[in-house]
């Protein structure tokens, strides 16, 4: 075994005279710094007996010189070189950010988060405005909307989502019917399960669940795609060539999600109704024909209109939020992940808030 870093010492006039032995390197340091600290004042350091020294060893020596005003003797040329490299004042070199108290940090975070939410809201509205302007510019310049891009997005946002949205809605239809039936049975009114499933699906749930799914599937994809394009400077390249990113990237995506949402929402409602129908048939012995007939009697046309009015608005919202967050990506890859998350969270949150407004609004119109 090779000698570890060690030292012996004798008492001098102004403190200990320390003589290092062994190898003064990081790998063999052991508890030497701690033991050295216990010595108290140190007058001199003798390096003549050491076998090797690296920068950590040299730093220990330098530190002792700075702290105790110790003198160094017996340094080999290598040791001298290392000591010279380290001898400049290092006190200006900072390692940590400034520390603050917990309360201060909490207030700081609350403040910053509030500002961030406010900025985000303004940013999305701003972005929406810029998009509308860009749309009008495009129309006035008689440039055609990029239908190829729209169709590609349409495939990704709409067609590819059909299986998962269909399955989800079908199951939700079953759940609503089953839970509703349990409650209504107590009053002998299980036939009203049809009202429950039919109206809830068309008016609210079909579309709302679709919006959440689309925000998760496509809003996030928009943010991630555009964010990556920002990182690789594709967006900047587009601008320098003279292609407007709004026209080439944002509009097709928003158009696709706006067109898709009513279709998907209607499809989801039908699937939920089908799920409810299956439960009514199997669980409540209501034959499908009766089920359909009853649906036609109880669902007013206004429920369908409500869905058709809400759907494109949700589509625009999801598209704009996703594209906006993607465009905000700067600096590094980590940002892409963060922005993707906030695209989904913001889209779902805004959709639900808006849905509440719509519910109150349409009720006041008398569309019950």
């Amino acid at each position, binding site marked *: 075994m090779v000698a570890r870093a060690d030292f012996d010492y004798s008492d001098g006039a102004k403190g200990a005279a320390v003589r290092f032995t062994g190898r003064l390197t990081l*790998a063999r340091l052991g508890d030497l710094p701690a033991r050295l600290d216990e010595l108290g004042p140190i007058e001199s350091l003798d390096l003549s007996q050491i076998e090797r020294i690296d920068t950590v060893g040299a730093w220990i020596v330098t530190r002792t010189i700075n702290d105790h005003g110790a003198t160094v003797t017996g340094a080999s040329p290598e040791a001298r070189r290392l000591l010279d490299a380290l001898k400049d004042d290092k006190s200006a*070199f900072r390692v940590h950010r400034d520390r603050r108290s917990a309360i201060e940090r909490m207030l700081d975070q609350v403040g910053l988060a509030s500002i961030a939410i406010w900025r985000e809201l303004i940013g999305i509205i701003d972005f929406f405005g810029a998009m509308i302007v860009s749309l009008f510019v495009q129309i006035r310049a008689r440039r055609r909307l990029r239908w190829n891009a729209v169709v590609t997005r349409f495939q990704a946002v709409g067609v590819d989502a059909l299986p998962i949205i269909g399955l989800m809605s079908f199951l939700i239809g079953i759940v609503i019917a089953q839970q509703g039936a349990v409650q209504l049975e107590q009053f002998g009114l299980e036939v009203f399960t049809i009202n429950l499933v039919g109206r809830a699906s068309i008016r609210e749930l079909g579309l709302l669940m679709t919006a959440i799914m689309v925000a998760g599937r496509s809003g996030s994809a928009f943010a991630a795609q555009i964010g990556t394009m920002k990182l690789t400077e594709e967006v900047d390249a587009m601008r320098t060539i003279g292609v407007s990113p709004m026209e080439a990237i944002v509009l097709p995506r928003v158009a696709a999600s706006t067109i898709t949402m009513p279709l998907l929402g209607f499809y989801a409602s039908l699937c939920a109704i089908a799920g409810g129908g299956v439960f009514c048939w199997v669980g409540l012995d209501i034959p499908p024909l009766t089920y359909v007939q009853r649906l036609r009697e109880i669902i007013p046309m206004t429920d369908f209109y409500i869905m058709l009015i809400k759907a494109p608005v949700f589509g625009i919202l999801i598209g704009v939020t996703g594209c906006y967050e993607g465009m905000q990506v700067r600096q590094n890859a980590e940002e892409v992940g963060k922005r993707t998350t906030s695209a989904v969270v913001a889209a779902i949150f805004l959709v639900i808030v808006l849905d509440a407004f719509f519910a109150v609004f349409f009720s006041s119109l008398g569309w019950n």
Partner: protein
Amino acid sequence: MSEEVQAEIKEELAAADAVRPEKFEYAIRIRGLRNQFGDAIIHDNLDLDVRSGEILGVVGGSGTGKSVLMRSIVGLQTPTAGEIEVYGKTLDTITDAEESRDLRRRWGVMFQGGALFSTLSVAENIQVPLREYYPRLDQRLLDEIAAYKVSMVGLPPDAGPKYPAELSGGMVKRAGLARALALDPALLFLDEPTAGLDPIGAAKFDELIRELADTMGLTVFLITHDLDSLYATCDRVAVLAEKHVIAVGTIPELLATEHPWIQDYFNGPRGRAAANCKQAVERQDGKS
């Protein structure tokens, strides 16, 4: 002091004895290396020795597998055939996790893009290897080590708490170098350290590498495209072409060989410019 701590120290010291770089004449020995991706053979029957204490430049055209060679040596890429010995140990045959850790802390690797951990500040990046291998170092010493490493690689005093995203390209490279040097390794791998730097920054970086290698007694494996770097820093140069090392030697030795690629490389317009520049500098040094 508790017995537990004593035992830990003892373990640490035993680990330190496992690999002792200064005993070896050659830091790296490669024999018959073969790397293959599907049908594409990158290296075939490649031999290379890196002497302890030298700065070896590795050059070669794009796609000749310089980075793959480095990745093979540090164990990121398992060779199809052949043997790579680093300080007398063959990575392939090391099965013991401890043993491979002992070897790993003898080298530092600086990747082309810096590869700094983006969620950690520069100082924390430097402390990562220290914490990993020497968990008992106290925070004060860790901070001091981070501070002097930052200063050694020529970063400004306020660089320590900054995050990689806040640094310029040149600073990222320096921070990457600082992390590679965190454990005071005997062997340093540099993958295109001057790529993407402006000529002034590149020249300063060359100088820094030379200076650090001299002060710390480093062995350096330097992959580069930069002819000025070769002239400024390298003791010897290995030329990678035709799937193996076609020549190793000092630049004058290489110039004496007949191989067309080497002649093209060093005697092309850029090669001559770098050589002239070097001569001019030497004349100036001679006068003063």
